[in-house]
């Protein structure tokens, strides 16, 4: 029996511990402007630097928080998120910032809260000979594969948003600020062709585009960490940071 116990521990010793320090929430945004309202409210702040990425830890509204900067692109966003998840175990990730509308009925200043996330950067073109041109409105979408236990990849078109956090965020409607649910899309792209925006929306059902939120959601999905996102349509980064604080004051 004792030998079995020993062998059992040996077998599990090859699985490294993940997220050794539990916290309540991870807050992530693209840049200092969006993070400023959050960092201003972070009490007992400590700073960690891991290579190119910075993590701030402390408390907001009595909640243990880790704050990080995504730099506004998928690679840095996923790298920073991974570092947070490796070192901490957040109950929720909140990604926030500004966005450009794909749903052209969205008004400036509207807060779009994630019903789900899509990383819309994947594409596959049909074979075409030289001289036949390039036809981006005919490309197929290419979802992201996510690695799962057992070394199997699952091609995933959308990543889920946490329903409880979403419902709380949707209650933060005000007379001067609409809060609506929608699909947050991200890619390392700034799309300004109206026909392409319509094509992306038809393929991925995106409400908005930004450069990080869905990729962070994909990283969160790898480790089954709940996530919520909020993007201010054509808004200011500061407004997005203030919305994050408002959300935190309501979220338990």
């Amino acid at each position, binding site marked *: 029996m004792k030998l079995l*116990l020993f062998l059992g521990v040996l077998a599990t010793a090859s699985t490294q511990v993940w997220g*050794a320090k539990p916290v309540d929430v991870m807050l992530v945004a693209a840049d200092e402007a969006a993070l400023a309202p959050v960092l201003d409210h972070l009490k007992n702040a400590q700073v960690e630097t891991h290579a190119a990425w910075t993590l701030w830890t402390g408390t907001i509204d009595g909640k243990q928080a880790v704050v990080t900067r995504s730099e506004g692109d998928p690679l840095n966003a996923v790298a920073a998120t*991974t570092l947070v998840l490796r070192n901490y175990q957040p109950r929720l990730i909140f990604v926030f910032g500004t966005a450009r509308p794909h749903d052209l009925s969205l008004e400036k200043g509207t807060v779009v809260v994630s019903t789900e996330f899509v*990383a819309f950067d994947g594409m596959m*073109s049909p074979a075409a000979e030289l001289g036949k041109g*390039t036809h981006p409105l005919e490309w197929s979408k290419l979802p992201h*594969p996510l*690695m799962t236990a057992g070394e199997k990849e699952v091609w995933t078109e959308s990543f889920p948003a946490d329903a409880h956090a979403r419902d709380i965020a949707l209650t933060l409607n005000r007379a001067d600020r609409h809060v609506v649910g929608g699909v947050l899309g991200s890619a390392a792209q700034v799309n300004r062709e109206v026909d392409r925006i319509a094509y992306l929306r038809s393929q991925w059902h995106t409400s908005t585009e930004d450069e990080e939120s869905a990729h962070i959601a994909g990283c969160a999905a790898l480790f089954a960490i709940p996530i919520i996102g909020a993007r201010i349509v054509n808004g200011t980064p500061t407004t997005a940071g203030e919305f994050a604080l408002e959300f935190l004051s309501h979220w338990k």
Partner: protein
Amino acid sequence: MNFFRFLAFLVAIAALHAAEPVDVLVQGAEKPEIEDLIAALQPNAEKIAIGPFSFWVGKIGRHRVAVSLTGQALINCTTSTIIGIEEFKPRLIINQGTSGAQAPFLGLHDIIVDTRAVDYGIFTTRERRAGEGSATTHWIPSPQRIRDPISHQLVAPPAGFDGDMAAIAIALRTRNPMGRVFRGVIGSAHEINLELDRVRWSHETFGMDVEEMESAHVAAIAFAYGIRCVSFRVVSDAPYEGIPFYPLAARATALFSVNFLENLSDLPASPAR
């Protein structure tokens, strides 16, 4: 506490800390790209699972090696690379696997050793009104930004991230058992391009010889950590020749990587800056 419980306690404590450092982290996105590498690890190789990602640790040649199954594309490979670096503290990262030819002279089983790796999927489109369509060759590319590990300032190498020169020199003296070896430029994005006009455009715009989905992302992360990095990509599909994806081509880079590791002498910890 009896002997067995004490021993079990010590093993459990050991598991709380990062794994033993390795000399080289060798990555492949899919199983066919790493199977020959795992087979080459000397007896007593250990498998370590971290989240959904698997690593196999052992020795190839004189080097302690972690073989990593990264999964495909940016989300998987960025996550697994950060984990691999943080856990195993490698002195060299090799990202290797399959790719699509963009240079017309390349054929099935040829291997490109990267002089540089570039993310070609970052762009801003020009403004076009409704009905004016989409013009990919007018899109304005942007380089991947990353914070310099010394200055902590954001930098954006316009041509991508250079492969490690010492590793490239050894790779160019290493045998590819299935084809030729060239130095060249590897482009990464979550794209599969089969329109030859766009293939030619990206070849001319970025200097790309092959396209795939991971190398440039890994190279950017290695830059941030100040770790040597090199990529080997075998041609597994060649749109100019109408050759569709041939997954078994993956064996060429895996066997090439094993040969490379056998040839590899000791490297200083960090690349020259």
